[in-house]
């Protein structure tokens, strides 16, 4: 049997978990992350494959995601999908699949009473899918519906975020929605899926993670049950350095809606592999920590002005986990982007909100983080990041991500690095990597032509409040924000019906 080998980042050191407390420390083989906890009645499994939407052939965008759906929501050679459901149901277990840009992750949490039966089923789902035509039709239709109905017509925030992603990575392997394009999905055949699985679901591309109440011998059993996977992996595609936006390159998606959703950003040259990432993580937390009131964007746009529900910033791709707050593990990427998410604002305040975000970012770049704020933010991140790994599955996911970047898991890296970091280093990293010009902007709104004219004309957009008692210092800032220069603006308008078509 060929042993599983993780070859994603050739030449980089394997992850270690040395700085976790002893209770959490686990053994790390090069392809396997094992975090045993004999007290736990639960076992978390993660199978991370080095294949993602970047591997979609041109014209068949969505193939990687559809293949992962055929694994996680389809039958096996032995059992049809309805039989799989009947077997998983009494365990209250599932094999959850998610296809991201660079990896596909399958996982589940199961009570150890059911571990043996679960393991047999899920390894068969991964290694020997049924590829039933009826599963294919169902799952392809679901994907087409997701792109053409849910994304276009049922969630403006997601629509804005995906528009930004696609625009950031034009003519690049990252440049389409992971679930696919409408035309791409319609052109995929069942044979395409079979062939993709055969070539891309290979042992050298697979990394296994097990945490909780499983014996060590369990790992060997999993490896044995995945033995039929190919021993030869397909190399991931090259990812060229994405083009740098010039000025403000705005895409307006026009649709009927009651408020305007905005996302903006630009490609970054750093990832968790780079030292500057950790300095930027502090700056980002100060500017816009996700779903907290710590960020300046949140405090100033929502707190002081009541513009919307929330405003956040990110220094790597951020996928929200339902209602939860913490970053989802196992979405590693060789290329990252900086982005700001402005949640829906009233139409008449959209440009003011955009200007406000740029003004806030500019203040960070020009003025840096004050020393006291730096200390507070560093302290916050050191404590807060420990909450990201409260469950077995999350702890496992973070440990596995460390290997991708040739680093320890993110929580350990932050714990090691932040105490040594200075405000000066953070501010220098900010000036090296962040900027207010050279930005892609995605806006989902109703009256695109009027918005286009305002943006291209760099027209002042003073804010009028329908609330009383706005403090004088806020009103003074408002005057600056209302005329914050929008330089070198180019605008294209896309009707929502055309989004993600091909």
């Amino acid at each position, binding site marked *: 049997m060929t042993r599983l080998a993780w070859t994603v980042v050739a030449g980089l050191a394997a992850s270690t978990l040395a700085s976790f407390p002893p209770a959490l420390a686990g053994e790390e083989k090069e392809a396997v992350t094992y975090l045993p906890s004999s007290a736990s009645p639960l076992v978390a499994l993660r199978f991370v494959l080095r294949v993602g939407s970047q591997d979609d052939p041109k014209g068949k965008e969505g193939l990687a995601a559809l293949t992962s759906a055929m694994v996680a929501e389809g039958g096996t050679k032995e059992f049809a999908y309805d039989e799989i459901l009947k077997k998983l149901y009494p365990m209250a277990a599932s094999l959850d699949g998610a296809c991201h840009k660079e990896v596909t992750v399958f996982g589940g949490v199961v009570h150890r009473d059911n571990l043996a039966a679960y393991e047999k089923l899920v390894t068969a789902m991964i290694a020997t899918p049924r590829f039933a035509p009826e599963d294919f039709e169902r799952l392809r239709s679901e994907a087409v519906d997701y792109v053409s109905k849910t994304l276009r017509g049922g969630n403006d925030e997601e629509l804005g975020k995906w528009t930004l992603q696609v625009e950031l990575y034009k003519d690049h392997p990252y440049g389409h929605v992971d679930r696919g394009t409408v035309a791409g999905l319609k052109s995929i055949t069942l044979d395409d899926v079979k062939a993709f699985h055969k070539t891309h679901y290979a042992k050298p591309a697979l990394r296994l993670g097990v945490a909780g109440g499983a014996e060590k011998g369990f790992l060997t059993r999993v490896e044995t049950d995945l033995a039929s996977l190919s021993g030869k992996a397909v190399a991931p595609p090259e990812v060229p350095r994405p083009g740098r936006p010039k000025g403000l390159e705005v895409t307006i998606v026009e649709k009927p809606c009651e408020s305007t959703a905005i996302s903006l950003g630009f490609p970054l040259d750093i990832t968790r592999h780079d030292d500057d990432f950790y300095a930027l993580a502090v700056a980002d937390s100060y500017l816009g920590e996700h779903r907290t009131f710590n960020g300046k964007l949140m405090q100033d746009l929502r707190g002081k002005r*009541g513009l919307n529900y929330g405003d956040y910033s990110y220094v790597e791709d951020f996928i929200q986990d339902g209602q939860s707050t913490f970053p989802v593990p196992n979405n590693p990427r060789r290329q990252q982007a900086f982005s700001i998410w402005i949640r829906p604002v009233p139409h008449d305040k959209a440009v003011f909100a955009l200007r406000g975000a740029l003004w806030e970012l500019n203040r960070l770049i020009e003025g840096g983080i004050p020393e006291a704020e730096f200390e507070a933010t560093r302290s916050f991140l050191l404590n807060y990041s420990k909450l990201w790994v409260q469950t077995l599955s999350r702890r496992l996911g973070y440990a596995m991500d460390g290997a991708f970047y040739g680093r320890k898991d993110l929580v350990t890296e932050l714990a090691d690095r932040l105490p040594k970091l200075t405000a000066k280093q953070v501010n220098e990293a900010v000036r090296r990597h962040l900027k207010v010009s050279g930005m892609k902007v995605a806006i989902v709104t109703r009256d695109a032509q009027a918005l286009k004219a305002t943006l291209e004309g760099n027209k002042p957009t003073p804010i009028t409040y329908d609330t009383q*008692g706005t403090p004088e210092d806020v009103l003074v800032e408002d005057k600056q924000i209302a005329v914050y220069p929008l330089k070198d603006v180019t605008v294209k308008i896309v009707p929502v019906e055309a989004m993600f078509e091909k």
Partner: protein
Amino acid sequence: MALRIGWRVAFFSLALLTLGLSGSALGEDRIFPYPTRESRLGNGLRVISVPFESPGIIAYYTVVRTGSRNEVEKGLSGFAHFFEHMMFRGTEKYPQDKYNAVLKALGADSNAFTTDDWTCYHMTVPASALPKAVEIESDRFQNLKYNEADFQKEARAVLGEYNKGASSPFLILDETMQDKAYTTHTYKHTTIGFLADVKDMPNQYAYSKTFFDRWYRPENCTIIVAGDVSHERLMTLVEKDYGGWKRGNASVEIPAEPEQKEERSAKLKWPLPTLATLYLGYHIPASDPRNPDIAALGVLAQAVFGETSPLYQKLVLEEQSVVMLVASADPRRDPSLFTILARAREADKVADVRKRIENALADAAKTPIDRTRLEAIKDHLRYEYAGSLQSADAVALAVGSSIALTDRPDAMNELYAAYARVTPADVQRVAQRYFASTNETVVTLESEPKK
């Protein structure tokens, strides 16, 4: 901060985590595997600790048994949720910036949410921060102070929250279901409130003081601390900081919903292509597991609509006319709804889907469920609960949900004991009792025809 709302459709994905309806540790007697300790201060404040292995971390929850259910005054729907936002606006001792700075220094994960029945303030912090958590939480619950300008700005953040949800068809589906199914009870409006009332919130500063005075009182609240905590230490701190909190005496009469006597319906249009949706609601009793119908309805939802049900397998897997099929005996403090949501690929299939659903319910009333299948459902419910209690936060939430619905911290044990007792005849009985067309509300949504 805040600001998760327990809308019903969002609930489908959360349901078994947030209801205290999920199952654990596979012991027959007590599904909730952790010992709890409970004390009550002289002012009525209840304090519950749930110590278990959670090295260095605690979840600190404050449960206020007030939700949108309590909004009896006309024009003031959504106020419980709005007030949840205001609770982050500070006190004299800890103005908003200082309160946030304390949380930031602790690295706290802190937030709040409001549902139909309760408002929950929660934070996950290092166990060593317990004294600080008690201090800042007791301070804001007793000494909240905000000015009208802050109040008005926050009202507009709430409108922003409404707007962010409005691009999804589920908001209007929920609003319409509640508006149609209820004529009298306050469940007629969703937690975020009628849009007209949300828009008018900046004008209700004076009422906000009444609201705080009425509901933010010790006898209406419970502190739950789960994880690395000692009950004795907790009580020493709580007595010191919450002991002076004055008991209230307010109550409002929440009008009972009269029996529904005719089918009700509404047809909605969506301006863009969308999956055609059928949303059915049937009145059921309040979610107290002492009523055996509650467990039986929970089993019925799984039996008729779960992923292994014949209906799901036929509509979703075989014919593929339906993309989503879910049902829930919605857990509420007062009499509630059993809801069924089906999303069909084509609008012209909706009538057939409805007929098939009604036939499946009629069949469940006529034919007893196979015992093997009944056992599989019971296993599913228990293991699902076991998988849900993975963190201090999840454990505190389970106890909080139980209190919110029943005023008892251990109703999940009663519920799972009741599940264990459900017989095929019980499932038949509830299928016969609740699904008459005179008890039915039907909401459909489909795309507007192309112009």
